[in-house]
């Protein structure tokens, strides 16, 4: 290994180079924070004019969105985003955790080694492709599912379909669930594999079945990592735009059942940015929606960091 490859041969030159590099590398490392601050600042600056018009509270909770008449209420879109994201998590997280447990704890070594690259590959498939699948496969299936549920259970709250098409928050949730599942599975597998073998052996040695060992010994230790995996999936689902837009129906009404169409915030921004300069304060309202997405992501990261710190403390003691 040749270490003295520096341009200058004198020790002072080498130290100078090192100090120079230290400064510039640390300067570069402040770039992420600068981007975040600059982005939040720019969006806030563009959003502020809307608050001369509506109060922040009205902006977030109002349910009327008529830009040409100066009515800006985001609550329908916020509920659309919440519905789709929550559905995605509910659909994705339990099977993903079970699949990861199966692959790490039960399946043969070779199965896991063969599947890992496939999972990584699937995590890299663009979201539009998931959207195409949603349009081709999920959307046609959803109304049938609705009819089936109706014929078996009658009218249930949240599950009663009045929507003849499949373009619904359920379709959006399913597409997002499948989209985030490779991410969740791959992180959960990594977490489970990092749990020392001795933990399992200790549980098995005192006579527990394999599942009991998983339930009582492995999962409690893996909990912080699994939460982190779910949060990663959540943030991907939350901000997804086109894949959701393709299947969710984009109707501005608060969904009453999972078979109703919805209109997430991201879809609102993407559908309307073209006209935003032509109606007064429209641009401020749309940038306010973007700012809301940014703020939620920041808050969510802080919350999950706090929860993780707590949970991993609990796991250690």
């Amino acid at each position: 290994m040749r270490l003295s490859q520096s341009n200058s041969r004198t020790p002072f030159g080498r130290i100078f180079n090192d100090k120079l590099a230290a400064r510039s590398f640390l300067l570069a490392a402040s770039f992420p924070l600068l981007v975040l601050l600059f982005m939040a600042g720019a969006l806030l600056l563009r959003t502020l004019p809307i608050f001369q018009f509506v109060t922040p509270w009205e902006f977030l909770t109002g349910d009327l969105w008529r830009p040409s008449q100066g009515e800006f209420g985001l609550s329908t879109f916020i509920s659309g985003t919440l519905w789709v994201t929550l559905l995605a998590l509910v659909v994705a997280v339990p099977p993903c955790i079970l699949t990861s447990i199966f692959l790490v704890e039960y399946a043969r070594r070779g199965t896991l080694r063969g599947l890992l690259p496939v999972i990584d590959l699937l995590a890299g498939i663009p979201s539009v492709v998931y959207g195409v699948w949603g349009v081709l496969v999920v959307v046609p299936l959803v109304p049938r599912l609705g009819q089936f549920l109706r014929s078996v259970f009658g009218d249930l709250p949240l599950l009663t379909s009045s929507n003849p098409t499949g373009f619904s928050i359920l379709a959006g949730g399913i597409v997002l669930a499948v989209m985030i599942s490779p991410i969740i599975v791959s992180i959960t597998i990594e977490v489970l594999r990092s749990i020392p073998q001795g933990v399992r052996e200790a549980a098995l040695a005192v006579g527990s079945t394999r599942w009991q060992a998983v339930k009582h010994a492995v999962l409690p230790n893996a909990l912080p990592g699994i939460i982190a995996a779910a949060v990663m999936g959540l943030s991907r689902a939350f901000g997804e735009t086109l894949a959701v837009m393709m299947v969710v129906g984009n109707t501005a009404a608060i969904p009453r059942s999972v078979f109703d169409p919805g209109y997430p915030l991201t879809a609102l921004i993407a559908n309307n940015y073209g006209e935003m300069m032509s109606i007064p304060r429209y641009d401020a309202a749309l940038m306010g929606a973007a700012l809301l997405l940014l703020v939620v992501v920041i808050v969510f990261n802080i919350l999950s960091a706090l929860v993780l710190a707590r949970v991993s403390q609990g796991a250690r003691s």
Partner: protein
Amino acid sequence: MKRRWWTLAHLEETFFRLLMRISALVLVLALAGILLAVLIRGLPAMNLDMITKVPEGGFYLGGGGGLLNAILGSLYLAGGGTILAFLISLPIAMGLNVYAPSSRWAAFTRMTLDVLWGIPSLVYGAFIFLIMISMGMRASLGAGILALTLLQIPIMVRAMDEVMRLIPGGLKEAAYGLGATRLEMARAVVLRQALPGIFTAVLLAFGRGIGDAASVLFTAGFTDRIPTSLASPAASLPLAVFFQLSSPFPEVRARGYAAALILTVLILIVSGLSRAVARRLSRNVVN
């Protein structure tokens, strides 16, 4: 001692084993179904024109031509974004691992990167769009590249950081022990040890960049022509999929599926490449 099958513990075991098998099966079927659906619907619309010609008159009504504008546009956008993001990401990752390891400031920067990772690509697009309006610029290749750069930096830095953190401390100490400065250590140890990981990070970010639609929607626009300069608008494959899928004409929709197929194949190539390159480069790594 033989366990009896009717004990609660055993029933629970059997139940969860079944549940696990079912969920693994459902996931595998769903994911295989995606590739299959894109292949089955995309293949009939594929022909040589699709990847060698730009759209001709009436393309969006079912006329002749191909998707070369979107293919090249996507490659330019993701390529430019990846190069810019690499130039910024490598110093950040180095700074985190060589000059400020385990400081509170490094922890804070890592958390900032986590936040940036989670920010929807749409928001990056909106941010660059705001800058564009304030400077009176129109949708262009350059603006699209900038939006993708912002999107790719956290992906790249996090992936690089992950491999750099795994470098054994002993190797670094050995370099310091020989009298190396931190810069020399970074070059001789960190760069060399992390090289396969750095390549994987770059290709990962490239894959995310080429597949992202929301950030280029605002910034790069869409055009039937191949971009000739940074100031001209650029088409992209994800948007080609999206726009053509919303068409009422079945021929045009079929081309949307073809575009999705091309995009998927590109991603598969990038993924395979990253695996091959990482394997080759890991010859230089000492464990």
